[in-house]
């Protein structure tokens, strides 16, 4: 049997709305004083407030802080409506553990299907509308990051994806100066896709 027939027989697997998100990749909310200090390793809890971009979901703050199930964590500082119908992304890994890479790839899974939202991957920064930066900035990748950014045409967006890029996470102090911040360690495909859609003027997912 050829692959085309096999593909058709699988049916439509794409989801209309997010259905199944891992709890410890979503927003954390204060649920009451469970006693003791959260001892947060990344200072993601300051004055009783949860700071999404610093959180690595180590669960030390549990049960004072618990997942709410809200996956819409992305912070959009600049919207580019010119990308509304076609938004090409070039990903650069400047020092990840690999988990952000894997989750980013899964926005292309049949369940999420980024292409229906007009979002695509490109293999070169020359064709990219947004630079998606993942990982903690390592010295070996600093020059490659700079060159990739300079190679992109205007207008362009910089997207920091994952705790290492948004705050340095567990491994560094440096955060990427970004137009779109996607917290998580790693962020789920739902969180990533929602932020990308909002960055190009949509209502999110």
């Amino acid at each position, binding site marked *: 049997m050829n*692959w*085309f027939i096999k*593909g058709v027989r699988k049916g439509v697997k794409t989801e209309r709305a997010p259905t199944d998100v891992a709890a410890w990749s979503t927003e954390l909310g204060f649920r009451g004083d469970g006693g003791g200090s959260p001892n947060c390793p990344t200072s993601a809890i300051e004055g009783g407030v949860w700071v999404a971009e610093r959180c690595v979901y*180590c669960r030390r703050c549990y049960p004072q802080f618990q997942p709410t199930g809200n996956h819409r964590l992305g912070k959009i500082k600049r919207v580019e409506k010119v990308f509304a119908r076609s938004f090409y992304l070039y990903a650069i890994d400047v020092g990840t*553990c690999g988990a952000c*890479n894997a989750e980013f790839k899964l926005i292309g899974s049949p369940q999420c299907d980024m292409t229906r939202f007009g979002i695509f991957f490109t293999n070169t920064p020359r064709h990219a509308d947004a630079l998606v930066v993942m990982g903690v900035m*390592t010295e070996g990748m600093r020059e490659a990051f700079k060159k990739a950014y300079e190679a992109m045409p205007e207008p362009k967006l910089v997207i920091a994806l994952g705790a290492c890029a948004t705050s340095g996470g567990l491994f560094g102090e440096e955060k990427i100066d970004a137009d779109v911040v996607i917290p998580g360690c790693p962020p789920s495909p739902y969180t990533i896709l929602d932020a990308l859609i909002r960055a190009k003027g949509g209502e999110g997912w």
Partner: protein
Amino acid sequence: MVAVNPKPRIIGETDGYKLYSDRLEEAGVSGEPSNLISKVRPGGSLVFEYGPAAGGLLESAGVDIDTFGEYIRGVNVTPYKVRRISVSGGVEDVLLRVERVNGCFAASHTAAFLLALEKAYGVEAPQDVVIGRVAQIELERIRNNMFVAQRLAEHAGFSVPSANLLYLIEEVNRVIGRAFGHRYFYGVNTLRGFRMDWQLDLGALKNIVDEFREVFRGLLDNRVFIDRLQGNGVIVDEGSIGPAARAAGYVYDARLDGDLAGVYAGLGLSVVRADSGDAFGRLLVRGLEVDESFRILSGLRLRAGENEVDWLSGSHSDNTGFSGSGLGWVESPSGDLAYHVVVRDGKISRVLLFAPSNVNLRLFTSSMVGNVFTDLPFNWESFGIWMSEVGVRFV
């Protein structure tokens, strides 16, 4: 059941140490992958630089290819994203960093590290916890082996099986996420225990594995696909590990002789092997291991309640002046993975990581000599290398 190979085998080397299946010894040489590009090259050859950031690469890596234009004379891979990971702070702080050495192998890294630490402290984890660690590693193996098959299908331009496999990987992630609250096991494990209650949906996993088997058979039936793999990257090397070793016929598997071997022995582990030593053999081993991993998971008596989370804090005062060392060794999805941990005055003072990707990187570069450009992505993916763990230095 296959007998354990009686001859000691090498597991890996790092920071001047060599680890064998029966001992750790000082080697006095660097564990860096060797550079196969000679300084003196014949006229007409060139060094083609690919990466460190380039389309087609999932992670950053610099690939230098010595070639006349198609025939590859030598390959050198440089990890550009070198992360220095501190061993300072408490055990739980170091554990958080170990989880993030290689997120896709986090269960394997965490299990090996915690086993090493428990040996250093002279304690053992309860049997339920040991079984739970085996379950996590086998889930990780199922996901990773599907991922390797997906990458190969994608490079071959096979969109339908590639999408089918991405669908299944996402479904495995969801099974893991529902059980553990996190798709990469972060924040789940601790010394001698788990931080949470968890329960695995084996029914959902069975459906995923059944569907994978159908896609995998479809790939194996396709002459166009397997032509890309057969004869590509042949390597038969006594120093190999994991699926690369088993694809070359070696019975090398830490599930037979590593720290968790007792659990696997009780379930009668069947070691999948091939005899071709090429990229096809490595895919074959990985694909068939998905079935075996599911069989193991089905046979485990999982009683995975929150367990012993306070052991460390409860005994912290007793360990203040404690000194010791230990080695933890498991079979990650890409082969042997070990940690050697030294504790001095109650603090972790040194961590040695023997990562499978270091060994697989050496095997990849050796096996590329004599191949052609179009073979490269298929051979690369067949080894299941993660540059994140290659570029890690514990300081």
